[in-house]
């Protein structure tokens, strides 16, 4: 067996036309995806979207019906998992309970024929990286959830894989710890420089950690881009709805390429299609002041304040602008907050910047 050098470089992953069916249902429908060398790419989607199936196909744990998966220039779709040389962090961690922390981390090294002396050094180094120095002799059941997570991580990268896969590794941790681990994982990724494919259904986690996000739904790649573009310029109603909060309003197309919200022109569109939808984020909506009235770059709507909900760091106001149509407006709760003094039932004016308007084709989610 060969000894994988610790100073390995990252490998790109190229997936083409990958299809996996369970009976009549497509878990993956001819997916094309390029993961750049050294990047942190997140597969994001609701449960049952196929994101885990895709990750398992990369790891080699399921057998796709057709397609190609390349690590660098090497086709691996026929390679059994134990020869793929990718690190993986499992959702359940999958630490071996009959081995100590050090034995768990040494396991992949032992299989690669690393000498006992070198093994000990590399295990200690890995433990140090995940800040668990001195815990090598512990049993797995003596560790907290966060510590297990770190051991699973150390075991996944100790043998110097050039690709690292993570299947919702933080989902079992409580919120505080999860947020700290997100930052730590990002640091670790920067340090190791390894190509990382991360699966999550938590959109906030995806936005926080990723270089790029691949949004997956019904076994298909829906949008692939940086977190900023995914959030600010979602390509479809599904992406807009799944990532962040949003209100969707129907637009009408009049006079060629202009689309209107009620009687206000919002922007122009390209392509065919008569149905367009406006997506606005609650935090990009404001209660209008006097100076907004004459500002061309802004769109003002009036409505009745229906309800305000205090949520700690922010407050949410629901404003009815038409029958059955409510806008959610999020504003700060601090002393300098730009909220409203209006009472429930009173008329209020809502404003948003034209640049914050997201116009997507179709009828919204329906």
């Amino acid at each position, binding site marked *: 067996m060969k000894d994988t050098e610790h100073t390995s470089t990252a490998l790109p992953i190229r997936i083409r036309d990958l299809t996996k069916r369970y009976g009549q249902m497509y878990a993956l429908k001819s997916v094309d995806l390029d993961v750049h060398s050294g990047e942190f790419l997140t597969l994001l989607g609701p449960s049952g979207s196929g994101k885990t199936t895709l990750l398992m196909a990369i790891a080699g744990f399921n057998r796709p019906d057709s397609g190609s998966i390349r690590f660098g220039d090497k086709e691996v779709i026929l390679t059994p998992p*134990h020869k793929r040389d990718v690190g993986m962090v499992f959702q359940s961690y999958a630490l071996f309970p009959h081995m100590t922390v050090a034995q768990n981390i040494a*396991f992949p090294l032992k299989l690669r024929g690393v000498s006992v002396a070198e093994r000990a050094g590399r295990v200690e180094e890995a433990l140090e990286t995940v800040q668990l120095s001195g815990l090598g002799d512990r049993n797995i059941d003596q560790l907290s959830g966060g510590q297990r997570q770190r051991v699973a991580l150390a075991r996944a990268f100790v043998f110097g894989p050039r690709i690292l896969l993570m299947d919702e590794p933080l989902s079992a941790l409580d919120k505080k710890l999860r947020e700290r681990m997100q930052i730590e994982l990002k640091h670790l990724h920067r340090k190791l420089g390894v190509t990382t494919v991360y699966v999550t259904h938590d959109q906030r986690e995806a936005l926080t950690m990723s270089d790029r996000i691949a949004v997956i739904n019904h076994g298909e790649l829906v949008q692939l881009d940086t977190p900023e573009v995914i959030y600010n310029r979602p390509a479809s109603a599904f992406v807009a709805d799944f990532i962040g909060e949003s209100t969707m309003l129907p637009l009408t197309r009049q006079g060629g390429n202009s689309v209107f919200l009620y009687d206000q022109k919002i922007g122009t569109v390209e392509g065919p299609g008569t149905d367009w939808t406006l997506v606005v984020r609650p935090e990009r909506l404001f209660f209008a002041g006097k100076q907004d009235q004459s500002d061309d770059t802004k769109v003002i709507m009036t409505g009745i304040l229906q309800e305000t909900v205090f949520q700690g760091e922010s407050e949410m106001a629901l404003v009815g602008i038409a029958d059955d149509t409510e806008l959610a407006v999020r504003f700060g709760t601090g002393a300098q907050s730009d909220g409203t003094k209006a009472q429930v039932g009173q008329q209020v004016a809502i404003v948003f910047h034209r640049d914050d308007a997201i116009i997507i084709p179709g009828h919204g989610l329906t």
Partner: protein
Amino acid sequence: MDTLAPDQTRADAHENEAELTRQHAREQWSLLSLVIPALLTIAFVVLLPVSWLFYLSFTGDDGGFSLENYQRMVEYKSYYRIFITTFQVSILTTLICIALGYPLSFFLAQLPPRWAGFFMLAVLLPFWTSLLVRTYAWLVLLQRQGLLNELAMHIGFWSEPVKLVHKMTGTLIGMAHIMLPFLVLPLYSAMSKIDKDMMHAASNLGANPVRAFWSVYFPLSLPGMVAGSLIVFILCLGFYVTPAVLGGGRVIMVSNQITAILENQFDWGAASALGVVLLVATILILYLAARFFKFDAALFGRN
């Protein structure tokens, strides 16, 4: 608003505390009372008779304290041979059960639960048939003119009828058949608790299927296997019907000897002494197993 005087509420709260404690105690006692029938049964059906046998085994012909029953066991070679046979049959049966039951349990544990239930039914089906019926069924199958001999001769495996029953072979076949579910049940339970990701992790880290099995799956299934093997082994030690029928007097285990002593000599002291030695041997084995394998963890199916 209508409010009570504050000190009045406080006094009520204090009174409640006593009543809440009483309720808690009552609940504990009523829970405990559920085991009383079982405890009484064990006392009268197990503890009392066993103590009586224990007493008898130390009683000589004259009715006084004596070690003659145990002396006889050391002096006569036939006793020695009986204990050897007993352990031989028990160990071999356990090994056969492991050889048959481990792959079977592994197979069951890989199936989706619904199919596993179906196949488990097949394993459990013999459980619902009388022990005696099953033993005699083997006698019919294995005898000189039995189904197995006829079939083997027809195909040409052997030309003369082979003697299978009334010796060790038949006894082991029958015993293994009867004991198999006792091994499969705890083993399947332990195996089905092994996270599928364990084997995924092993192969992901570079272990080929054989290596992954021996370094991860087998150690994790070991507690279940030890628990099942112990149950089989201990049940075998005291087994009577199958060696009596399929051994045909040539496979004499402790239980068969006890029956023989009682039927022929009506010597309760000698029979009791055999029982006591068997009991002590069983307890000793359990103790050693507990020392080596963390037995309680195995019994409760923890990995």
